[in-house]
């Protein structure tokens, strides 16, 4: 790297004067080399991203227009929009997919306000000076580090259908023996609720930490001023806390909605062994995996992937649009 020396030595004189522009003409010599180094430095990451994100994603779009099956001796045939038509309108084939879409929507519509609200309540509760407050925060954050496959197994025991399941026996105890065994995971009415509860339990600490960081940026003087004005606790919440955290709150809600559409692990684990009602809980990703893996129908699974991506991208773009003013630093 010694070859850079003479070029690098030139700007040293220029930079004696503080307001010198960053891109002085004397730097052109070095800039030329930076081109090589810059490209070399970014090449491995860029190559990886193109190979494992860019190309596969483009390929998914292409595959969705074909009738491709894994392990099929037949050549893939061009299918046009047939996969999409089947997904949305075919009387025989669209059922599971539309159900998955509806389930996922239900999941998102319940989880986003529930989890964001709970996280906000916890964040407010934990945003105070108290001995061992760090310990309390850690305890609520704890499930976030648990792999979802394990969380599903723990909740499989809690929600077990036998009278020995934790929830069933707790209800049995508080109802003085009037509560019988109920199959929380297997019953179509409560299956999705079960998945929602365990997902919120696992994830709420994540949103809590983000909101806590947001709360701590609200200047303490604002609360002092509000107290001088004899504002009640509710008024303080309504007129100081909420406006101070609204940006973070909207961000968290949108982030949670993106995450809601990526749900897969817990549904898969609980269906494969936990007796979870498959039809009531299949999600878009679950549908994509079963279509690709169990049915070897790559074309259709790719079409599901594309639909999934469109949902996520719309949510992400809304998120970026909404959050940009204020919280975003320059980029």
């Amino acid at each position, binding site marked *: 790297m010694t070859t850079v020396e003479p070029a690098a030595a030139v700007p040293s004189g220029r930079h004696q004067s503080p307001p010198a522009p960053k891109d002085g003409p004397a730097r052109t010599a070095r800039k030329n080399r930076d*081109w090589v180094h810059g490209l070399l*430095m970014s090449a*491995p990451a860029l190559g990886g991203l193109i190979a494992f994100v860019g190309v596969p994603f483009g390929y998914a779009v292409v595959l969705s227009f074909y009738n491709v099956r894994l392990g099929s001796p037949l050549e893939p045939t061009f299918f046009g929009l047939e996969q999409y038509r089947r997904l949305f309108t075919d009387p025989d084939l669209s059922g599971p997919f539309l159900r998955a879409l509806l389930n996922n929507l239900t999941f998102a519509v319940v989880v986003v306000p529930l989890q964001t609200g709970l996280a906000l309540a916890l964040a407010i509760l934990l945003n105070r000076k108290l001995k061992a407050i760090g310990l309390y925060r850690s305890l609520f954050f704890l499930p976030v*580090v648990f792999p979802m496959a394990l969380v599903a197994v723990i909740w499989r*025991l809690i929600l077990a259908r036998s009278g020995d399941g934790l929830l069933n026996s707790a209800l049995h105890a508080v109802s003085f023996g009037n509560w019988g065994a109920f199959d929380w995971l297997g019953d179509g009415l409560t299956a999705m609720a079960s998945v929602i509860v365990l997902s919120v339990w696992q994830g709420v600490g994540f949103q809590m930490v983000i909101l806590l960081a947001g709360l701590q940026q609200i200047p303490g003087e604002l609360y002092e001023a509000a107290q001088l004005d004899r504002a009640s606790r509710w008024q303080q919440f309504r007129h100081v806390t909420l406006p101070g955290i609204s940006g973070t709150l909207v961000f968290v809600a949108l982030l949670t909605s993106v995450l809601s559409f990526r749900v897969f692990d817990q549904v898969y684990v609980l269906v494969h062994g936990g007796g979870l009602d498959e039809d009531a809980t299949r999600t878009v990703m679950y549908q994509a995996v079963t279509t690709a893996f169990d049915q070897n129908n790559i074309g259709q699974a*790719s079409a599901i992937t594309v639909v999934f991506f469109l949902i996520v*991208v719309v949510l992400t773009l809304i998120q970026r649009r909404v959050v940009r003013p204020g919280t975003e630093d320059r980029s």
Partner: protein
Amino acid sequence: MTTTPLRRLLDHLVLGLLAFVFVLPVLYLLVGSFKPSDEVLNGLSGFLPTHLSLDNYTAVLNSFDSDATGYFWRFMGVSVLVATVVVFGGLIVNSMAAYGLTRLRWRGRGAVFAVLLLLMLVPFEAVAVPLFYLFNEQRNTLYIQAVPFIANAFSVYQFATFFRAIPPSIEEAARIDGAGPWRTFFAIIVPMSKPVFASVAILTFLTQWGSFLWPVLMVSDPSVRPLPLEMSVFQGQQPVDWGQVLAFGVLLVLPVLIVFAFFQRWFVQGVAGSAVKG
């Protein structure tokens, strides 16, 4: 704000109670992993610490003892190996790219960065199916579990945000002393960027350790099966040996808990930072 001792006691009571209820599932996991299997799924007495022993743990370590069942230490080894490659490979590759894109001036870097931001929009779930199809011949290998996750657009973005805030005078000084971009990066920038390396490392490790969707698609051979996938397979076998399943679960989460205990500050910063900057 002044707080009276009574008020503080009340705070502790409320928070303590809430936290206790919240971590009950974790306690249940822990207690159950030390109990005989037939006493785990046993109503509320599943919480009672009766007949505790390490039997489940020794059984988990010894009962996976053939090629058909796989070996516990192999599951652990696969998980550790894959996570190590993804975390450390990712730190090198992504930080280097971020440096090249933010601190070196060259034509086209803006366009490259824009492509990167676009790729950040694509969650792994959106490429899982085509990747599964493209790499079907490589199923049940170790490298296909790790390599696709090394380059990470979001990590590059996190590094880039940090590097942008470094004053240019620091690099100027290094360059005057004759250091090229590579030496400047590895000898000056990396050592002063420990916080971002720590939080990216932890966030990557956390995501990778629990990784499930990709192994479901790509791994069927027990000899290259990572822990979370085996967790799913193990709990799906009838009849379920609950004591052992829970002991397995504890062993699955233990490495993350240890990392969490030691690097808690970075965990929270990494997670909070991931959101604020995302």
